[in-house]
């Protein structure tokens, strides 16, 4: 009896070990390192002290927290757009498409993910630049006379980001909606509900865990993205991750960079927490259901 329990315990330990190592070595330790670094302040070359000076200077510099707020607002916008666009797609795949076409549709959604972020951003650049495909087509068709620049605006950044992250919205939505019994929708109509009521009272509440987990992933990915905003963004747009890069690399200011990193993590976590509270979900239910 005893040896069997030992074996079970050992196998559990062995199963969990890679996961625990991954969490501790690659997630927890670096974050602690960042936190530690962010509390260090440089007073002179090779002389350091510990304190909150980096956080104070962040609070005192509007450029920094404005960028953080801007990044958060645009990430929320991207998340909302991804939800609005992704939900019908997910619903179609999960509920309307036939068994056979469902796999093909899912594959079509996955294909863009095989190409790296960088290449996808360059794709957008080729399409949208002043001498690019869209502008040339418009000129050729006679709709406009001169070239139009679609690049280098915040709208382009939002479009590019929605395109990059929408997959992470659709996948959890499909898997949640997939589990929904058709009979519930039919019952809704039988009881006199119209399409909108059924959507609002039955489908959305059922899909809520999927919606919330999709939103969390999308929001986190967007707020932490670097390439797309840098490549598509214009002369006025700054993204918080670019600030972190600048602090670490071009200004050699690891302390400030680490502070920004910690703040970004804390800030996005707070936004996610507020989102969970507002939607009445908890992290465990959303993760378990979707």
């Amino acid at each position, binding site marked *: 009896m005893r040896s069997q329990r030992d074996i079970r315990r050992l196998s559990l330990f062995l199963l969990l070990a890679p996961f625990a190592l991954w969490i501790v070595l690659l997630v927890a330790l670096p974050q602690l390192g960042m936190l530690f670094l962010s509390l260090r302040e440089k007073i002179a*070359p090779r002389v350091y002290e510990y304190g909150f000076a980096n956080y104070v200077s962040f609070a005192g510099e509007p*450029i920094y927290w404005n960028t953080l707020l801007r990044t958060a607002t645009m990430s929320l916008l991207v998340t909302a757009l991804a939800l609005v666009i992704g939900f019908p797609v997910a619903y179609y795949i999960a509920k309307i498409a036939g068994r056979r076409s469902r796999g093909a549709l899912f594959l079509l959604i996955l294909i863009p993910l095989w190409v790296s972020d960088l290449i996808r951003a360059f794709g957008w650049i080729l399409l949208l630049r002043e001498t690019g495909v869209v502008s040339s087509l418009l000129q050729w068709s006679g709709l406009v006379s001169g070239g139009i620049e679609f690049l*280098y605006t915040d709208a382009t950044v939002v479009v590019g980001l929605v395109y990059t992250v929408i997959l992470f919205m659709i996948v959890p939505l499909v898997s949640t909606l997939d589990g929904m019994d058709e009979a519930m929708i039919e019952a809704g109509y039988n009881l006199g509900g119209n399409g909108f009521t059924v959507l609002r009272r039955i489908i959305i509440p059922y899909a809520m865990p999927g919606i919330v987990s999709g939103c969390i992933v999308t929001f986190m990915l967007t707020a932490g993205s670097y390439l797309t905003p840098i490549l598509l963004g214009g*002369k006025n747009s700054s993204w918080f991750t670019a600030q972190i890069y600048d*602090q670490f690399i071009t200004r*050699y*200011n690891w302390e400030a960079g680490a502070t920004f990193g910690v703040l970004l993590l804390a800030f996005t976590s707070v936004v996610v927490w507020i989102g969970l509270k507002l939607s009445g979900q908890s992290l465990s239910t959303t993760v378990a259901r979707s």
Partner: protein
Amino acid sequence: MRLKATLVGALAAMLMAGTAQAETLRLLTWGGYAPEEVIRLFEEKYPDINVEVTLSNNEEMIAKLRATGGAGYDLAQPSHDRIYAAQYEYNIYKPLDLSKIDLSNVEPKLLAGVKENTTIEGQVYAVPHQWGTSGLMTDITKAPDIKSWGDLCDPKYKGKTSMRLRRTILLGTAFAMGEDPFSAYSDLAKYQQILDKVADKLIACKDNIKAYWKGGDDLSAMMLSGEIVASETWDSTAFKLYSQNPNIRFVPPETGALAWIDTFAMPRKAQADAAAYKWINFVLQPDIVKLMSASTGAMASIKGAQELLPADKQEAVKAAFTAEDIDNLKFFANIPPGVEDMEGKTLEKIQAATSN
């Protein structure tokens, strides 16, 4: 028994492979500074050295070496103005043994300049390799009167110019406004005043800029497609474009093009010093310089380097520089500690300011 024999065989093979590649030379350098052809010739001459290349830029080189305290690479190629402060603050390089480098061929002016900039406590930390300038690039058919850094802000070319939002344009604009930023490095309060003036000017100029370029590729694309007609640029990028469209010329600004020298410096925990010195001596030979310059588009720091450029680049250089322009070159001055932070804040201010 069979297993044992296999194991012994495998071990022996590993050992032999180990002796065949006794040494690895890990280069930390710029794109184009270690062309395949040069590496092949080097490995042919020194079959026991294996060259590994990591491509980087000034800032990333320092960040990488700082992270490891100068380990992980055997030879780095930072620009001459980026060594003193980095060494002083982070102690990432070790002094060079100049007796191991054949300096007879090196252009004395450049060597003296680099030595002066990188000598700490009597020890020299770098020798020159390639040099070039930053200045302006213009399409002479569309913007013939671009002469000064400030002309990028000329409303005539609204939405048709570009620049890289880095320190070069700050310094260039300061010179164009009649200041001498390099001499102000010794008086940081004065330098801050200059930076503030430059920031105001560049914020007002934002309207004129189409987009800030980030690397040679996006700059080339904008220039070749005609989306912009003039830009701040590296001369090597302009020379490359000249071969595709001879109307695109490099223009040294009237206050002087800003010159940089990429050097050889040895990371503090480098492990293949002998191989590194061999590489330095190897790539400074005139026939190798020819291959190197064809790949970098920049001039080597050896005597008569201009004749060693490929024919089309020679033509581009001749179309760009007069003898006075060469005399007027302004070499980047050493960046004292603290200046990077001031310049960084200024650049952030410009990036964050709004325009149409």
